[in-house]
């Protein structure tokens, strides 16, 4: 049964006023509103497309704000600088200026580039992240689809990005790109497993892979202190798993201290060394989309999805994924990059072991309680 009404259970949870989850998914609602649902399969498809278009643009708009503007502002705050402030209020119009600047640059393609792969890589990187948002419940009924294997799906599509990275690295015919591509693959393989295994410990709690269900399950009260009931967000129920997942996620999206695939001071820019203009924009967007997708997964399976007091669900959801983005920038300001061999070692010898330990412990504890 897709999308149990969370609003009903929310009456007993912490934030009773706001319905967390709607039964109706976004495509159906759009179908209803526009009357497209009367046109059979074609209408349904069109409604789905419209919904996907909306969500895709929402995410792209967020990366648009994050990349040229927020990243600069946040980094500047950490490093005692001012950053963009000339164009528009707080320099916000720099987004437009940057977009025009980047898109109007010459697209330089290396002579020996492996053409189809070289051209496809940026699209693969950017689109794989966008695909992931399809199953993320963002609150206020903004939820494209809620398949029963939602969590597995989201890990699967975000994993496609490594393919894009290795394509970019190999097809650029540049040694730095090659090194970066290889590093990216080694890193993604090493951290994908702890990521998924830690995700599984959540599944043990929730008893389902369906994203909507996982969010609903977190609305249950965890403890009640002085009349305020705290919801059983899995970050609170199992903080250890949360930290593991956070670390694995930073490695998965290649952020500090695990930004070895780009490693600007070592291998210039890694897999994206030879990309310019539109292709660069796509890769750059893709990176930010991946950070936000990582944030969305964390928000969904650990932070109660769109749940939160007073504000509408979608606002809470956006706040949560921006918090994760903010954390990546914070780490970037203060934490050194680990070396590639140390990174692999941490992944295989550290995180993997801890992830399995966490999984087994969770299973035992949940089994005992049940």
């Amino acid at each position, binding site marked *: 049964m897709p999308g149990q009404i969370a609003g009903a259970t929310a009456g007993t949870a912490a934030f009773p006023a706001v319905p967390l989850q709607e039964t109706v998914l976004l495509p159906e609602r759009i179908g209803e509103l526009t009357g497209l649902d009367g046109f059979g399969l074609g209408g349904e498809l069109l409604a789905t497309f419209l919904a996907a278009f909306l969500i895709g643009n929402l995410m792209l708009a967020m990366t648009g704000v994050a990349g040229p503007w927020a990243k600069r502002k946040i980094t500047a705050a950490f490093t005692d600088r001012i950053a963009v402030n000339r164009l528009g209020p707080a320099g916000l119009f720099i987004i437009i200026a940057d977009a025009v600047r980047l898109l109007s640059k010459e697209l330089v393609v290396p002579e020996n580039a492996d053409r189809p792969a070289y051209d496809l890589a940026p699209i693969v990187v950017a689109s794989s992240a966008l695909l992931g948002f399809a199953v993320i419940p963002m609150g206020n009924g903004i939820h494209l689809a809620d398949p029963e294997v939602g969590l597995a799906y989201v890990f699967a599509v975000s994993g496609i990005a490594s393919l894009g990275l290795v394509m970019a690295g190999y097809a650029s015919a540049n040694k730095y790109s090659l090194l970066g591509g290889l590093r990216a693959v080694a890193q993604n393989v090493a951290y994908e497993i702890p990521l998924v295994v830690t995700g599984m410990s959540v599944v043990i709690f929730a008893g389902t892979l369906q994203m909507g269900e996982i969010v609903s399950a977190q609305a249950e009260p965890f403890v009640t202190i002085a009349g305020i009931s705290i919801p059983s967000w899995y970050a609170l129920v199992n903080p250890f798993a949360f930290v593991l997942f956070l670390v694995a996620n930073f490695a998965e999206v290649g952020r500090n201290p695990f930004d070895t695939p780009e490693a600007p001071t070592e291998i210039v820019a890694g897999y994206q060394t030879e990309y310019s203009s539109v292709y660069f924009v796509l890769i750059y967007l893709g990176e930010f989309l991946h950070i936000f997708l990582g944030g969305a997964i964390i928000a969904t399976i650990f932070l109660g999805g769109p749940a939160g007091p007073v504000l509408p669900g979608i606002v809470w959801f956006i706040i949560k994924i921006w918090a994760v983005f903010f954390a990546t920038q914070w780490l970037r300001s*203060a934490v050194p990059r680990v070396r590639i061999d140390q990174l692999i070692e941490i992944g295989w010898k550290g995180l993997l072991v801890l992830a399995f330990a966490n999984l087994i412990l969770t299973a035992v504890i949940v089994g005992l309680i049940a």
Partner: protein
Amino acid sequence: MIGILKSMATTMKHALDGSTFTVEYPETAPDVSPRFRGVHKFSQERCIWCRQCENVCPNDTIQIVTNDQRQGEQYNLHIGQCIYCRLCEEVCPVDAILLTENFEFTADTKHDFVYNKEQLKAVPWYKDIDPLAAREPDRGAWVGEGDGEVDYQ
């Protein structure tokens, strides 16, 4: 782990206190020390055309043209080539050439940086500061000349 958290706390402290060390140029002009050395200013009234500045200049930035009575005709200074060592000011016996604090000068081509004496005269003071007071060199060393060989040109 403690160290990493300490690092992160340190940067967060900076983010929260909101102070910045960069300034918004040109709205906030940087402070320039009174001794700062910028573009030259030339005074033809003072100049006695002794050519000491031309001779002391380490990289031939100054070019002086005189007529056969040793009266000055041209005084050219390539401020794009100048290394701002201030030796010309230091050797000048009459303070005819000195370096203002003016550092904001532009030109479209390198050639535009060859200033003739009219342009050099027109160089403005930076914020009306006459730098000579702050830079008062110990001219005793020059005037005294020492015991060795003296080379007056």
